[in-house]
């Protein structure tokens, strides 16, 4: 692990240099919305944000991704494979909650007999340059889910704003390789590291919102038929924003676009939509919002825990922030954890 310091004025030059060698994705502000975009000569990284509206998961798991193209000629077909990943990438300015989501997504997409090469290859080709969080919001609850505002899970390097300058901490070999490309970076002084530590502690304290996830998974084991589900879904509109903006939600559909020369695409889908599980026969095992809400909560706090020993939520708070009817996942977890053990 290395600590380097970067003068604030030098950041644009560092990012610009990265774009010479890598495809760089970074937070960009456009029309008052900050989102991860590919950097070019037309835009620049913007770091004065709480968190991006959309998580950066689409850098590895695009909303629409072509798996291959096909050309139909009379009765025959020709398939052209699309490489899962091309050049090397840097994902710059990722908040610790979102970086942690990649640890979980890696576990999921690399599990089982058949791996998702499209996600894994892109993740493998990418260096994740995190950005510590100095002022968490009221909807943030990362510390309840194993994360923290200065957390390093899932990152290769971490950029920390220590008031007058930035501190760069390398975490993995990939991160060290990247820093080595900038020989002019000075080593950090002990005082800089101390200050970062202090800021990290302050930020952790600033995460006021807490949920108790202890025993939630065990309780859910016995709660499939609980009356709780009859209540909590009632105001849900089924819009799916909670799943689309969730850094860990990764359900998708596969479909064909165009009939003669077309492409097969993998496209984001949501367990909150009724057609997600609708059979050809018309039967639907999750026919109302009740079953769909239960699926979302069960998947994150029970099924994923059974399979991977981790909760499938990083506490970023986007689903709380953006829900049009103010459904709050923290209240749902609270209600589950308040259930008396039988």
């Amino acid at each position: 692990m290395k600590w380097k310091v970067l003068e604030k004025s030098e950041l644009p030059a560092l990012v610009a240099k990265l774009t010479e060698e890598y495809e760089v994705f970074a937070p960009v502000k456009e029309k008052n919305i900050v989102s991860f975009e590919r950097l070019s000569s037309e835009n620049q990284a913007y770091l004065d944000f709480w968190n991006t509206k959309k998580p950066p998961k689409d850098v590895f798991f695009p909303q629409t991704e072509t798996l291959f193209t096909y050309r139909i000629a009379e009765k025959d077909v020709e398939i052209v494979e699309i490489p899962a990943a091309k050049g090397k990438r840097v994902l710059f300015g990722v908040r610790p909650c979102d970086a942690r989501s990649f640890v979980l997504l890696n576990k999921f997409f690399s599990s089982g007999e058949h791996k998702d090469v499209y996600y894994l290859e892109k993740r493998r080709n990418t260096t994740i340059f995190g950005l510590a969080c100095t002022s968490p919001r009221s909807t943030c609850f990362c510390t309840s889910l194993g994360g923290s505002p200065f957390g390093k899970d899932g990152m290769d390097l971490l950029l920390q704003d220590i008031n007058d300058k930035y501190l760069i901490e390398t975490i993995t070999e990939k991160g060290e390789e990247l820093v080595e490309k900038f020989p002019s970076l000075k080593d950090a002084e002990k005082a800089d590291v101390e200050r970062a530590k202090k800021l990290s502690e302050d930020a952790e304290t600033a995460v006021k919102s807490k949920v108790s996830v202890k025993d939630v998974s065990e309780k859910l084991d016995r709660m499939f038929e609980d009356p709780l589900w009859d209540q909590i879904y009632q105001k849900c509109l089924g819009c799916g924003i909670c799943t689309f903006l969730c850094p860990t939600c990764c359900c998708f559909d596969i479909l064909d676009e165009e009939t003669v020369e077309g492409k097969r695409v993998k496209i984001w889908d949501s367990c909150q939509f009724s057609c997600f599980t609708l059979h050809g026969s018309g039967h639907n095992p999750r026919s109302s919002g009740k079953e769909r809400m239960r699926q979302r909560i069960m998947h994150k706090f029970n099924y994923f825990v059974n399979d991977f020993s981790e909760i499938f939520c990083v506490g970023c708070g986007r689903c709380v922030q953006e829900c049009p009817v103010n459904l709050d996942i923290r209240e749902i977890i609270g209600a589950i954890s308040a259930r008396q053990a039988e």
Partner: protein
Amino acid sequence: MNNPYIPNLAAIRKIIIENEAKDIKTFELVFKDPEAMKNFRYKCGQFAEISVFGAGECPIGLASSPMDEDCIQFTVKKVGVVTTALHNCEEGTVIGVRGPYGNGFPLERMEGRNVIIVGGGFAFTTLRSLTKFILHEANRDRFKDLTVIYGARNPGELVYKYDLEAWGKRDDINLNVTIDRAVPGWTGLVGFVPAVLKEVAPSSDNALAIVCGPPIMYKFTMPVINELGFRPEDVFLSFEMKMKCGIGKCGRCNIGNKFVCKDGPVFSYKEFQMMPKEY
């Protein structure tokens, strides 16, 4: 890294119209690449994702027997976008196949035991694969008595009539084909599958039962299976669920934390009883 989303190309060699309504057809496929044909090793009860390019993909159970080496077969009911597009294909059309997927029937556990196969309606496809496999001369001795109970609404809706006719002439299978209501010209059994099962009353001694059919059939068949004394761990059911990827990634076919595509589609009745009621 192997890319699981790329289908193998296969040409439709033959199309067999299976029922009177003409909405169930069997497609006989030959892979374009002979190596792919050789490498496509599957078990009875597994399925594959079938692509009709321009329409999409859907999961279909393998209806051929793993002993059929020169082709694979899928029996498909015309229901949605992809199955309709497939029904509109002519012989010679190239489609896509990826798989095989799923766990399949527990053949190892059936060896040396009596096998009871119970199927209703169009869900008989993977059971046909299993029946054909057991009846193959290279396999028949590994299994004891084979009892098949298969029912359809009316004679016109029975699929694989050519197989049923051939099996009816053999003495190493107890074949019971039934239709729901009597019709002129039908001389076989009449009655719903559970009733016929009760009448045939196969012994549960050293036996395994495989049941596959619509949900309503499970509802009325399972009590009979219990009455006959089968232990829940000796009864296997095959599930259907909306699927897309077939490999446990797209997130929709789960019942509790079990994915029907990769942990199933075959589950023992014992496993089934422990699953949440969401199917």
